[in-house]
């Protein structure tokens, strides 16, 4: 039953009607077979009757020939030979027909073959008597008749024909019984087959009706429920489609603004590309300037090195001057000491040493001044040495600064090269941005067209949703009507 419940409606109908048709076909086949057998049996019955008729005709023909022979023998009148003549022709024809009709039965064929000889002998005896009557007269013919040979031949024929007729009667009896049995069977099949077929069709119809009522009722209930849900969904879809159409209109407006912005970006990107190209040209020019500046810095570096070398040489010379000045200072000091000692000696010499004292005093003054000048020169030299040291330090600092500046300028040149490369890359990128933005504008236009199409589709969807809602409402009414037809108690 569970398997039957899983069948589809078509399958159930096909199975039900198929089973009914199979019952009808079975009854028809059996009835046809029985009718066929009955007809065939009837043919065989007719065949047996034909054989028996032919056998009777054969005996009748023999009797006609014997009748003609007796009339002629008794009368001698040729007119009595007419049955004899017609009997001969009928015997030959009947024998030929018999051979045909019993050809399917070996026993009957064998009997027919065994029947030929006595018939020939009988016909020969009849011919002999007729010929004798005609030629020698009645006595001669009677003499032959009195031999009873003809009667013996005739008895043999009658016995064989009777045997064959009995056989045919047996066959008739058997076939009659078979025909009766077949008719009874046909009758039974028609009666019982009809009953069984009717019961089967009723049962199948009841089962199909019951199952279909339940399932179609359930399906109709589901359709009804689904129709309600679909109605709600169609309402939501209509509302959603309306909102979607509104949103798509807003999107279309936004995309138009985006398209305008995209075109502005494309124009800006074009200007950026032009500016970047101009920057790249300036960067190339600046690159040459940077190379020249780097060469100048290298020249400054070499000159600073020379200045440092000269300053160090100047410091060394200053040290040498200081050494010479030490000698001069020592000489001045010694001169001063000598002058003082000379003054002392001149004072000791009394009046005679006064002029020498003057000389000694002047020498001492000169030594003092030389000493003072030496101190001044020393101060100057120290100033020079300090200045040289300061200059050397400043120059070294400057040299280091030049080195650092050179390195920094190298870095700057490298950075400038990188900037130039990046500017070139920026130019390419700006061109790509310009191209991409143009493509983007084209794409946005296509999107705008697509959005317009979507808006149109949304509107159509809204209309379609309304139609769907209407259809669903009709379907709900239809399902209610269907349920009322199938299960009125559920439709209430």
């Amino acid at each position, binding site marked *: 039953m569970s398997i039957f419940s899983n069948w589809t409606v078509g399958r159930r109908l096909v199975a039900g009607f198929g089973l009914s048709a199979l019952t009808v076909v079975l009854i028809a086949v059996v009835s046809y077979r029985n009718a066929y057998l009955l007809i065939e049996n009837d043919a065989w019955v007719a065949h047996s009757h034909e054989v028996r008729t032919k056998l009777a005709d054969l005996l009748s023909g023999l009797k006609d020939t014997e009748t003609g022979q007796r009339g002629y023998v008794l009368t001698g009148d040729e007119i009595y030979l007419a049955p004899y003549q017609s009997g001969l022709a009928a015997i030959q024809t009947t024998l030929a027909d018999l051979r045909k009709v019993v050809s399917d039965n070996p026993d009957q064929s064998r009997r027919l073959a065994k029947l030929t000889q006595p018939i020939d002998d009988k016909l020969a005896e009849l011919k002999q008597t007729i010929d004798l009557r005609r030629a020698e007269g009645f006595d001669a013919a009677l003499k032959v008749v009195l031999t009873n040979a003809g009667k013996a031949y005739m008895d043999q024929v009658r016995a064989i024909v009777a045997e064959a007729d009995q056989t045919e009667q047996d066959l008739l009896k058997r076939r009659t019984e078979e025909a009766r049995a077949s008719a009874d069977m046909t009758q039974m099949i028609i009666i019982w087959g009809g009953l069984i077929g009717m019961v089967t069709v009723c049962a199948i119809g009841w089962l199909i009706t019951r199952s279909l009522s339940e399932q179609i009722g359930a399906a109709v209930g589901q359709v009804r429920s689904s129709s309600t849900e679909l109605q709600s969904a169609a309402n939501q879809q209509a509302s959603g489609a309306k909102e979607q159409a509104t949103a798509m209109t807003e999107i279309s407006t936004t995309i138009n603004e985006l398209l305008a912005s995209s075109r502005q970006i494309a124009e800006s990107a074009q200007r950026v590309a032009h500016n970047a190209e101009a920057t790249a040209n300036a960067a190339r020019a600046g690159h040459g300037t940077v190379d020249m500046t780097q060469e100048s810095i290298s020249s400054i570096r070499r000159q600073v090195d020379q200045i440092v070398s000269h300053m160090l040489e100047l410091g060394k010379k200053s040290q040498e001057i200081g050494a010479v000045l030490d000698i001069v200072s020592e000489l001045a000091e*010694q001169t001063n000491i000598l002058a*003082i*000692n000379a003054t*002392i000696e001149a004072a000791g010499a009394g009046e005679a040493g006064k002029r020498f004292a003057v000389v000694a*005093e002047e020498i001492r003054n000169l030594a*003092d001044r030389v000493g003072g000048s030496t101190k001044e020169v020393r101060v100057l030299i120290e100033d020079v040495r300090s200045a040289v040291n300061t200059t050397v330090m400043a120059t070294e600092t400057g040299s280091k600064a030049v080195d650092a500046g050179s390195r920094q300028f190298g870095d700057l040149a490298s950075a400038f090269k990188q900037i130039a490369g990046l500017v070139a890359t920026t130019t390419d990128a700006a061109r790509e941005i310009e191209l991409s933005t143009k493509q983007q504008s084209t794409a946005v236009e296509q999107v705008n067209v697509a959005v317009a199409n979507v808006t149109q589709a949304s509107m159509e969807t809204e209309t379609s949703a309304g139609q769907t809602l209407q259809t669903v409402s009709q379907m709900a009414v239809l399902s209610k009507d269907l349920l009322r037809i199938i299960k009125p108690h559920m439709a209430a």
Partner: protein
Amino acid sequence: MTGASSQLALRVAELRAAFDRAFAAPVRTGAAVRHDLLAIRVDAEPCAIRLSEVGGLFADRRVTPIPASDAALIGIAGFRGAIVPVYGLRAVLGQAPHQEVPRWLVTAVTAPVALAFDLFEGHLRVPADAILPQQSPERLRSYAPEFVRSADAVRPVLHLPSIIAALENARTVFSMRSEP
């Protein structure tokens, strides 16, 4: 640079002119009395010595240390064929004695004695009124009874005969103490 060269040449010319003028000018007679002094420093203290009391000024003379009980006696040195004792003025003036032999030496006129000091600053020629009597404590006043006001400082004028006399007295006292 040109200005400095011309200034130097000007100074050289002034020096030459002063030198020539000194010999060209007549001998000054009857002029104001002026005193010659040596400006020195003992340790860091500026002092002065009358040139008339000095027999000679010497620098970088080799002084041979000798063992002595007198802290002021540094050693002996040779001056013009004579060996004289060398005393340090720091110890004489009551200051910390020299750790090394000072570079500058003066010999006294009155006795074969040399005095060592730290620095010779120059020659001073001052008028008589620039030298004034000293109002310092007794001991220093015995060695420097006067002071002179120079351009850069006020210097006590060491009196070498007094110092030499004090050294002689001290040596005499030591000799008397050392005799049995």
